[in-house]
Each structure stands twice: as structure tokens, then as C-alpha cells.
């Protein structure tokens, strides 16, 4: 494959997306306006579990401006059940209807939908729908849900267990017997709300004339939506166009196709009118999938010199009340990534994913890997405490050596490349680690609770080889790109990824500019429209550049090769005599040359046959990665805890990451910074809370604490570059890394601050109340 001289690539180019967004001219789904539009409002369950005795829609239907009221009975088997992504034959499963079918399984489950001439009328009428529910006992706590006598989310299933996967390892048992020391920990990875600033929004438009459905939806994977909606409505996918216009953040929670999406499509077809819905923030906190929700128990076998020999882990993952796209499988990644960047000899694990009467869980910025990093990075600090070693020394003693790549871990992951000492060394230098420890010693002498936390982590990106999932999972995870050169030499790129803030309209234009010597203004990147992009997968799993960008590189290579052949013909020279540089094809050793734009025009408009070539200048490429990529980083955080109040001040945060070759460092920094703040949010403030009866307690911004600007100091960033050979760009992926590294780093710092008091763990979120109570309990002990 060709390599193009980096000219624009590697530069901090400001975004092509921004001119429209900074002027308020972007079109998000709720901004779509169509003639004869109607507006939907949902009636949702107030109970976590129960039987629906009756639904009376008559008052709602009679309300002025109401165009239709729909319940499960109205669907009459014509649409549904809810789309399901990945599934296994032997897992606990039941169909999930688009609207509740006689029973409710969680608070917020849609029961009825009202469609009206205005959004206000729809909401008024939704309030008039009378639903009579006979509540029954809900099961909310995931560990309690595993008990044989626990109330069952699905009465027709034998238990609440969705998947139970034991992964025993006799080698681990042996190492536990041989080890100098062992320790065990129970770690909670609480549920969090993805909280994109734009909630879910759908505009469904069935056009009876052409028999075509267009759905605008705030989603990360519109090609999945197209397939899932077609399946749900039992219409051919060629009748469905899914558009993800501007999407106001997703973080994994907009990968799935939600029940509301096919439902509104079906209603649009029933009414022959467009239907629009944008959820309220409370609906978002109730009805958008939650992230994390793991309970982990970990045992560690280690030597007195700090070397970790083996792990025995247990993950209990809360699936919620129904299976979202990938939710029940997230825990698998936790096991896969359990070794972190350490050469651990053996790993045994036990995975249980369990139904509860709560909202479904789904990927959230990291999806299983943050949980793994949290476990192993907390473990490393506790091993350091048990052995009396510096946490940095413990990590160094366990690192996979940089000469050992590709490296297969004891949990079966194949790491592409890495140099963990490199990033750690740079972080130690940037942070002034020794000085920071000395300052901490002095602070402690003054009685101050100052803590320094570390995380040296790796994660898996560039999702990912289609063969990474079972064939029956029907989830090809390659990516596509089409490069279409116009007769002028201007270029349109059609990509299968679906960026929603990541900036690939810019990064991809940089790549095109380097390949053809055209300006950034001469490139348009089209995404998020299934009628323009034949097939694609979407933006998640840190795959935009590593997979989507790689596909673009392949397409650019194909176009470039054809342009070279056309240039050779017109220059009357053999192809191997053509040299290319900065948009010009030159016959080697001569001044005979053609510009890329001249070649583009010749390819389209000149009445000259180039032997063996079709007219035009366009290529489609699909990149199937041979493996995944493993970026890594070394983070340090310094906090000070106020013993009187439990308040934590983040005083410093230093991050040195390695994500391979970088297309646009400014955009990469943006991904890292945003990720870190989300990870810190989980560590310190964020928590989806249900009460014992399954009522959501964190249903508004008064109750769910999203990080704000004043919570943070200026983050200090640097990076090292260890390329990957998994893709032709050498780029690894950046979207989730910050979240994965920052959460354990913060908790390690907090525990480090409190360790002189005898405190060895703080569950997330480390909110002041919890920290204060821990300090009080330690003082009392």
C-alpha cells in the first residue's frame, strides 16, 4: 500500500466541522422540519415491575390536536420485537417488545405513545393516558438478583442469569499456592449515565408514494439502524434510509437501536405523516442505556518483590431489564483486558451477567476495559502497599517488555505493540515524580491528606476484526470508504464511520490532501447517511481512524494508483517511471508532468481511451483489520482531601499516552481531555441510583452530578509514539483512552491520601459524604 508524505497529517489543523457549529447552523435531529410534522410523547412505566391491568387511552385520543395513541395492542404483531444485537444460543433471553406487552420490567419502559400536532399537545395528552399497574416485587441489586429465590425479571426464565461463563485455570490455582502473598478486593464499578448533551431524538418519515422510510436519528451507527428498523418493520432494507445528522455526543449509548426508533417509524407509516420525538433530560436518564454496573471480586497472587503471578476474578455485570445491543457481553472485555500492561502468568475468571429491574446497560466509553483497568490498577497499588514498594517500581517489575510484542496475555488478548517504560519515564519526568513525593511527605508531616495516584494502563481499540465475534453474531466490524474524485480534482469521501464530534471531516480531509495535493477546502467528507454510504459500521470502540481511516487510506491508494496509470499514459511513459510529489506526476528525470487536477479532468472528460482503464476516478475500499490495537498511557494525579468535609481537590493531573501515529494532535488532545474528565466524573461524582423498589433517584441534573469546568485544574499532556502494524496508518485509537486511565488514577490518589489513616479502599463515586464517613470510621477504629 502506498505511503503518502505527511504534510497536513500530523498538523493541528482546525476543524472543518466548526464553521457551521459555532454559528448555530448545524442540523441535529430535532432541528429537522418537515411539512405535516407530528410530535410524539411517551407514557412510561412508573413501576419497576408489575402487570398492566388496563390502559385507558380514550381521554388522550379525544384531546385536541391528537393524531393517534398507540399501545402494544395496536401494534398487532406488525412491528417488533426490540432490536437485539449480539446474542448466543445458550444465553438467558426473552423478546423485548417495543411497548410494554402486559407487564413492565423497569421504570421508564415505554407503555404508550401519543402523537399530536404540537409537542405540547402530545405531552398534555400523554398525561391523560390512564395506566393501571399491579406492582410486583422488583429486583434491583445485581448480587441479590443472582439468588435462586430472587424475584425473576422474566418469569418464563429459570433465573435472572443472562450469561454465566466460568473461565477456570489450574495454572492460576497452582500459582496461588506458590505465591509469597495473596490479597483480595471487592471493587464496585457503579452505573453511570452517558449523558450526551443531545439526548435521543428521532424523526421518522414514511413517504407512501415511493414507499420509502427515512429516519433521522441521533445515533452512532446509522447502518445498524437501517438494518434493525427494516427487520422490525418487516420491510426490505432498500426501503429504509437512516440519517445520523449532527449528533450531540453518544459515548456508546447511541450505538444501539432503541425501541423508540422502529416504533416511531411504524407510526409514521401508519399515519402517513412524519413523526418527531426528542427526549427530555429525565427521559434520557431513565431510558438511555446506562454504563458500567459491575461488581468485581479479585484475588491476587504475588511475590514479595512485587511481581504479580496470577489473578482470580469474578465479574457480576448488571444487564438491566432487557438486552441492549452489546450489553450482556461487556463483561467479556473485562476478563480479556484483566492483565493490563503486565506480564501476569495466569488468569482465572468467572463472568455472570444478570437481569435486574433497571434500565438496560450498554457500552459506555470503554465498555468493559475501564472496569479491567480499574481492577488491575487498584491491584497494583495494593500490591505496592503490601510489599512496601513504590507503586512505580511495582509497575515496572510487572510490565510486558517492549521486546515481547506482539504479546499474548494470560487472558488471551494479543497486544500489537507497546513500550510501557517509555510513557512511564516521560510521565515521571513531566510530573517531577520524586519532587511530588517529597512534597507529599512534607504535607503529611503537617497533617494534610495529600495523595498521589498512578495508572499505567492499556486498552483495546480499533474494533475490530469481524472474526473477533462469532459468525452467527452477524456483526461484521470492518469499515468502508469511497473516494470520488470530481472532474475538477475536488474530492468527496464517503465513509462508513459516523463521527459525532470526533472530527473526521477534518482528519480525513488532511489524509486526502496529503494523497492528492489538494487543499482542505477541496475535500468534502460525507458520513451518517445510508443512502450515500452503501455500508458502514459506525463510530464506537475507538475505530474512527484505526479502521475507518485505514479504509480511507486503502481507497486513496487505489485512486492514486489509477491516477498514476492515467498520468503515465498521457505522459507517454511507463508507469514505473512516474514519480509523485505534492499533487504532481512527473516522468522521472524530466520536467514532463501533470497535476492531479489535470489527471482528474483527463479521467473524466478527455475523449481518450486509456487502455485497460474505465473512465472516471473513484474507488471503494473496505478495511478488515487483522487485529485490534492497544494504546497505552501513564497517568498521575495529585489530590488533597479535606478531612473536615471529605471534599477532594484535584491539584494536578498529568497524562502521557501513546496511541501510535497521530493524524491531528489538537483533535487527539480533545479526545483525551474529554475522556479524562468523564473518567474522573465516574471516580468522584457520577452515579445512577435506584432505590430498593427500582425507582430512579438520579433522574434530573439536580440529582446526577456531571462534571463542570471548575472541578478541574489544567491537565498536563504529552504523548509518545509507538506505531501499530495492524493498519497502514500506524494509528491506534484515542476515543476511550482518557476514560480508561483516569478513573483508577483518581481513586488511587484518593486512597493514597487516606492510607495513613488505615483506609485501603474507597468505592466510587468518592463523593465527600462517602470520604468523610470513611475518615470518621477510620478514626473510630
Amino acid at each position: 500500500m502506498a505511503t503518502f508524505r505527511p504534510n497536513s497529517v500530523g498538523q493541528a489543523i482546525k476543524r472543518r466541522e466548526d464553521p457551521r457549529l459555532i454559528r448555530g447552523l448545524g442540523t441535529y435531529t430535532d432541528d429537522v422540519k418537515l411539512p405535516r410534522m407530528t410530535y410524539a410523547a411517551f407514557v412510561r412505566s412508573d413501576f419497576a415491575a408489575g402487570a398492566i391491568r388496563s390502559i385507558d387511552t380514550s381521554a388522550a385520543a379525544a384531546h385536541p390536536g391528537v393524531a393517534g395513541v398507540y399501545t402494544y395492542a395496536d401494534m398487532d404483531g406488525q412491528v417488533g420485537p426490540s432490536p437485539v444485537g449480539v446474542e448466543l444460543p445458550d444465553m438467558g433471553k426473552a423478546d423485548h417488545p417495543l411497548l410494554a406487552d402486559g407487564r413492565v420490567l423497569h421504570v421508564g419502559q415505554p407503555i404508550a405513545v401519543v402523537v399530536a400536532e404540537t409537542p405540547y399537545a402530545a405531552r398534555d395528552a400523554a398525561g391523560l393516558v390512564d395506566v393501571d399497574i399491579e406492582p410486583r416485587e422488583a429486583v434491583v441489586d445485581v448480587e441479590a438478583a443472582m439468588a435462586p429465590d430472587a424475584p425473576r425479571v422474566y418469569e418464563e426464565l429459570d433465573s435472572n442469569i443472562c450469561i454465566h461463563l466460568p473461565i477456570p485455570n489450574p495454572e492460576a490455582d497452582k500459582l496461588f499456592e506458590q505465591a509469597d502473598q495473596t490479597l483480595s478486593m471487592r471493587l464496585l464499578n457503579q452505573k453511570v449515565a452517558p449523558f450526551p448533551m443531545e439526548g435521543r431524538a428521532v424523526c421518522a418519515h414514511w413517504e407512501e408514494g415511493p414507499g420509502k422510510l427515512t429516519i433521522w436519528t441521533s445515533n452512532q451507527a446509522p447502518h445498524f439502524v437501517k438494518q434493525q428498523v427494516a427487520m422490525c418493520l418487516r420491510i426490505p432494507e432498500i426501503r429504509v434510509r437512516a440519517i445520523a445528522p449532527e449528533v450531540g455526543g453518544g459515548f456508546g449509548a447511541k450505538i444501539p437501536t432503541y425501541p423508540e426508533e422502529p416504533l416511531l417509524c411504524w407510526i409514521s407509516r401508519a399515519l402517513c405523516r412524519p413523526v418527531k420525538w426528542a427526549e427530555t433530560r429525565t427521559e434520557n436518564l431513565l431510558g438511555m442505556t446506562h454504563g458500567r454496573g459491575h461488581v468485581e471480586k479479585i484475588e491476587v497472587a504475588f511475590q514479595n518483590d512485587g511481581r504479580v503471578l496470577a489473578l482470580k476474578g469474578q465479574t457480576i455485570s448488571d444487564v438491566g431489564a432487557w438486552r441492549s445491543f452489546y450489553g450482556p457481553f461487556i463483561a467479556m472485555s473485562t476478563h480479556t483486558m484483566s492483565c493490563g500492561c503486565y506480564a501476569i502468568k495466569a488468569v482465572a475468571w468467572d463472568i455472570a451477567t444478570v437481569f435486574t429491574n433497571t434500565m438496560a446497560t450498554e457500552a459506555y466509553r470503554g465498555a468493559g476495559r475501564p472496569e479491567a483497568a480499574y481492577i488491575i490498577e487498584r491491584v497494583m497499588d495494593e500490591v505496592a502497599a503490601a510489599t512496601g514498594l513504590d507503586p512505580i517500581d511495582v509497575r515496572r517489575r510487572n510490565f510486558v517488555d517492549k521486546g515481547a510484542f506482539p504479546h499474548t496475555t494470560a487472558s488471551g488478548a494479543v497486544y500489537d505493540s507497546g513500550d510501557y517504560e517509555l510513557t512511564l519515564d516521560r510521565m515521571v519526568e513531566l510530573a517531577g515524580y520524586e519532587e511530588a513525593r517529597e512534597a507529599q511527605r512534607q504535607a503529611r508531616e503537617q497533617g494534610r491528606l495529600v495523595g498521589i495516584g498512578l495508572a499505567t494502563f492499556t486498552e483495546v481499540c480499533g474494533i475490530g476484526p469481524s472474526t473477533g465475534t462469532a459468525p452467527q453474531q452477524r456483526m461484521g466490524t470492518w469499515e468502508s470508504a469511497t473516494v470520488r474524485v470530481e472532474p475538477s480534482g475536488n474530492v468527496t469521501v464517503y465513509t462508513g464511520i459516523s463521527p459525532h464530534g470526533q472530527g473526521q471531516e477534518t482528519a480525513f480531509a488532511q489524509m486526502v490532501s496529503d494523497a492528492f495535493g489538494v487543499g482542505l477546502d477541496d475535500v468534502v467528507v460525507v458520513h451518517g447517511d445510508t443512502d450515500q454510504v452503501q455500508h458502514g459500521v459506525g463510530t464506537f470502540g475507538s475505530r474512527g481512524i484505526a479502521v475507518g481511516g485505514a479504509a480511507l487510506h486503502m481507497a486513496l491508494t487505489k485512486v492514486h494508483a489509477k491516477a498514476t496509470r492515467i498520468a503515465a499514459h498521457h505522459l507517454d511513459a511507463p508507469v514505473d517511471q512516474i514519480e509523485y510529489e505534492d499533487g504532481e506526476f512527473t516522468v522521472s528525470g524530466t520536467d514532463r508532468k501533470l497535476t492531479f487536477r489535470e489527471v482528474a479532468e483527463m479521467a473524466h472528460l478527455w475523449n481518450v481511451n486509456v487502455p485497460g482503464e474505465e473512465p472516471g476516478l473513484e474507488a471503494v475500499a473496505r478495511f478488515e483489520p487483522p487485529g485490534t490495537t492497544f494504546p497505552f498511557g501513564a497517568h498521575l494525579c495529585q489530590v488533597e482531601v479535606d478531612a473536615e468535609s471529605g471534599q477532594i481537590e484535584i491539584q494536578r493531573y498529568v497524562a502521557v499516552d501513546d496511541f501510535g501515529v497521530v493524524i491531528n494532535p489538537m483533535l487527539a488532545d480533545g479526545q483525551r481531555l474529554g475522556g479524562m474528565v468523564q473518567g474522573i466524573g465516574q471516580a468522584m461524582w457520577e452515579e445512577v441510583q435506584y432505590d430498593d423498589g427500582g425507582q430512579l433517584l438520579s433522574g434530573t441534573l439536580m440529582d446526577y452530578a456531571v462534571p463542570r469546568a471548575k472541578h478541574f485544574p489544567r491537565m498536563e499532556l504529552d504523548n509518545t509514539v509507538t506505531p501499530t502494524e495492524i493498519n497502514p496508518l500506524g494509528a491506534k485509537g484515542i476515543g476511550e483512552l482518557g476514560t480508561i486511565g483516569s478513573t483508577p488514577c483518581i481513586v488511587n490518589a484518593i486512597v493514597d491520601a487516606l492510607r495513613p489513616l488505615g483506609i485501603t479502599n474507597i468505592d466510587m463515586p468518592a463523593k465527600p459524604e462517602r470520604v468523610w464517613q470513611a475518615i470518621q470510621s477510620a478514626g473510630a477504629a
Partner: protein
Amino acid sequence: MPRSVPVTVTVNGSTHEREVEPRTLLVHFLREELDLTGVHVGCESTLCGACTVHLNGRAVKSCTVLAVQADGQEVTTIEGLAPNADNLHPLQVGFWEKHGLQCGYCTPGMIMAAKQLLDDNPSPTETEIREALDGNICRCTGYQQIVDAVQHAAEVAGAS
């Protein structure tokens, strides 16, 4: 049908007369009646700032202002901040230059809130910027590049 009341609001320099339900929120008036969809709804509870506009020169959360409260008043939205693409407001320049936005959903409100800050304090410190933007949530950027953007705007405005 619900009763309507007349309102006259000057938005971005143009005066608009409409009949609205008394309960109509300013954000819905701007988005639905005037097609100013740069004003975004993020929480309907004054807490996220995505809907921030200026009412008589002061930043307000338009999700908790009634359209009738804006009767006879002047509103400026993100669409009114720059006459065209070639004459961006320093804050728009700052957000573009410093990568102060990713998904862009919070951006109009963030810029309008930052405008209030710079109107009151033309050269704020980083701490003052972070405090001033406390009513505006961004879930993408981690805020640091927003701080850079506001500082850049302050420098550009100060130099001009």
C-alpha cells in the same frame, strides 16, 4: 385549543410578532416559531446551559423563560452573534482556533455564556472562566480547550 396571547420580540435585530400559548417557553418560541435552531434544549431545568441566549444583553437560560416574559424585549441568539462567516465574533474565532467544541451541541450556549463573562470582565483568569461557565455543561471537551477558546477570544477582542 389553548388560548393564545400576542408577543412582540426583537430577536437578533428583527422584530417578530406572534400569537403563542402563554406557557410557551422562550427556547421553543425561538426554535419553533423563528427557526433559530442554534438554540438547543439540554435539560429543561436551567442546569446545563445549552439554551443560553441573551435577553436585553444578559445571559439567560431560555428553557426557563417564558416567551411572554420576552414580550417587548431584545433577544440575541448564537445566530445573531456574527453577520456572516467572514465576520465571526471573537468567541466564535476562539472556539474554532482552540478546538473548544466537539459535538457542538453545548457550543451555542457556551459561547453566549462566555460572552456574558467577557462583557463583564474582558480579561478573565482561567479560574474566573471556569467559575463563569459553571452553569454550562460540556460532555465532550473536558473544558480545557473551552478555557483556551475564551482566553483566545479575550486576547483577540483586547487587541482589536
